[in-house]
């Protein structure tokens, strides 16, 4: 082989020279790790299936966060690696992916999944394998006590807190009679249950609830179910057909009278708000977990985060303005990786034997001040319910761009604990 490559057998001197040069390059190029093996983090990624748009950006965000962590010396002085594995946004494959990441790739823990049906389908397997499972799914299933001690959500606020913190503003500013359109599965049901409750608590009324299967591709047929006396239309959709949903909503109302519209940005994640057919969104409101369009008061941390992930001021990829980010959600990946770093350092994590210590260290966390680790803003983690609470933003479409008009406080979203995971056994 060598002979074929070089044409002749290399001399001893040539080999020594080459080896020396190699050593020098290696020594200068990378930080000197303390000879230890890297920490391996498994990433359960929605690279294909209905969550693919999120998957693309979650992978980029994870890579960017990984670079920041490694440039700052890794975790406990060890370099960090992420092993990505596609779950097809499929609950059944989710469990297999966790199994594969843990048993075959030897990952220390698993993080990153978003879609709630996948998380719910996967979490039991993570508990059986006794591996920390840090999800970015927004669902109330973590804090409700449905899952287990190994499953935690330290990177993003859950739907329960999101909708109850925003309901008062929606009712005070947009209207009291609400019609809800939501996807017909766990995530949508959280919206239905908690927003309806919050509306009632604030003196409003939900007059219709329209559930749409998440795989639906045509929506006009559902729209006549919206009662004519609706004052606020609340919509949240997911999946590959979200753009169709919003376009058909625009066609349906046309230039005629329409209610106020309050949507979750999920209905338009990875979609340009200036797309043709979306002009009717002007003046409507959206929830955003993180403002896609860079706001005037953006912190230096957020600016650094945008640059690191490669997102421009409009929330699209720096290299392709048509490639719009899932900006309202993907900060959760960045923040979760930083929580992992903090948890591993607090617990002195060395090997998989310390997995339990790591979970306990994260449970001990509480205040998370805004920083490069928490670019979306300050947060409070509840160790008992394994759920974090952050600020929520309401934005208005002005000139085709999402501009923030309201920020909720952390307390707005707090609710009573439904579970104490710390009292459960490992």
């Amino acid at each position: 082989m060598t002979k074929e490559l070089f044409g002749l057998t290399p001399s001893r001197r040539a080999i020594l020279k080459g080896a020396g040069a190699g050593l020098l390059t290696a020594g200068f190029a990378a930080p000197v790790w303390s000879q230890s093996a890297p920490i391996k983090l498994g990433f359960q990624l929605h690279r294909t299936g209905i969550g693919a748009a999120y998957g693309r950006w979650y992978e980029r965000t994870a890579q960017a966060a990984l670079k920041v962590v490694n440039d700052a010396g890794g975790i406990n002085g060890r370099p960090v690696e992420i092993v990505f594995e596609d779950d097809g946004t499929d609950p059944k494959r989710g469990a297999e992916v966790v199994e594969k990441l843990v048993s075959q790739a030897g990952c220390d823990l698993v993080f990153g999944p978003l879609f709630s049906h996948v998380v719910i389908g996967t979490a039991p397997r993570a508990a059986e394998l006794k591996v920390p499972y840090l999800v970015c799914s927004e669902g109330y299933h973590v804090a409700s006590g449905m899952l287990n001690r190994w499953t935690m959500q330290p990177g993003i606020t859950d739907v329960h807190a999101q909708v109850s913190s925003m309901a008062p503003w929606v009712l005070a500013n947009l209207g009291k009679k609400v019609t809800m359109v939501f996807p017909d599965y766990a995530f949508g049901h959280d919206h239905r249950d908690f927003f309806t409750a919050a509306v009632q608590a604030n003196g409003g009324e939900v007059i219709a609830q329209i559930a749409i299967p998440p795989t639906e591709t045509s929506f006009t047929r559902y729209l006549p179910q919206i009662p004519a006396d609706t004052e606020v239309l609340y919509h949240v959709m997911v999946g590959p057909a979200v753009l169709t949903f919003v376009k058909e909503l625009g066609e349906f109302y046309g230039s005629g009278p329409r209610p106020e519209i309050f949507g979750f940005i999920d209905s338009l994640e990875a979609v340009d708000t200036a797309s043709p057919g979306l002009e009717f969104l002007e003046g409507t409101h959206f929830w955003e977990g993180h403002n896609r369009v860079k706001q005037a008061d953006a912190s230096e941390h957020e600016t650094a985060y945008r640059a690191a992930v490669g997102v421009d001021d409009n929330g699209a990829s720096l290299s392709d303005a048509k490639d719009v980010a899932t900006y309202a959600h993907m900060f959760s990946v960045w923040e979760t990786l930083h929580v992992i770093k903090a948890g591993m350092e607090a617990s002195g994590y060395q090997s998989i034997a310390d997995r339990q210590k790591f979970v306990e260290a994260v449970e001990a966390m509480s205040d998370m001040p805004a920083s490069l680790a928490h670019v979306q803003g300050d947060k409070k983690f509840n160790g008992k319910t394994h759920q974090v609470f952050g600020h929520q933003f309401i934005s208005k479409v002005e000139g085709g761009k999402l501009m923030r008009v309201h920020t909720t406080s952390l307390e707005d979203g707090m609710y009573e604990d439904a579970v104490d995971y710390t009292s459960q056994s490992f």
Partner: protein
Amino acid sequence: MAFGPFLFLALLEGTVMAAVLALTAVGLSLVFGVMRVVNVAHGEFFMLGAVAAWFVTYYLPFPPAVTWTIALLIAPLFVGAIAATADVLVLKRLKYDPEATIVATIGLLYILQQAALTFYGPDARPVEPPFHLRLQFPWFGYSGYKLFVVLAAGLILLAVWAFMTRTKAGLVMRATQVDMETARAFGINVDRVYAGTFALGAALAAAAAVLIVPIQQAHYLMGHDPLLLSFIVVIIGGLGSLRGTLVAALIIGLSDGVISMFFSPTLAKIIATLLVALVLVFRPQGLFGAKA
């Protein structure tokens, strides 16, 4: 919304669905009628049509109306060529054995779907409609493009009918359908007829997809629904009967539109499936199918 406008919107939606369904199902029916092949990969030809339309409209530097028209010409040709290749490379070698071709087309389904995932990616991507026109009725607005879809699908179906009944190629196809052995004895190149039929069936699915893709979006998993609905239509109408396919597409499309609006889309699917079961029990050859 009052009953009248409600029904009107339901019928509009149903008509659009019926038109696209008829186009897709006619391809499936044609392939079965002439070749006796149950093409499980038919939905993937639909998907390929939509994906091809995305590539054409995305990369050609013309206005949407022009690129979309080019897509309507190129996508069916491209998909038809793939289908003809599949016929020659796979189906012909199986001697069109009914069981073997079902398994082979299931394989083809996965190959095409994964190829789309590999080369096109997992994202749903929008295609610009050739024109933006919104019809504003007193009660609701409606996309003018959707009505154009009905018109275009009707014209394409008319062209298929003229092709089958007025041209020599159509005559040859019908002759092969009636009796393949005798047709061969009369000097008809049955292999070529089969490849052509399979290509035509796929091209029709692709054309339907190009029509529908500005309303939906191109996605590698979009072939499931059209396949299922086409089978429902073809079974109710009678496998191999073009007239039956058209009538069944109208029944299923309109009833789906109306039932989904007044009750729920899930109920519409349940009733369509129930209808298939009833047809299979009481009239296995379908409404217009010839007795086997």
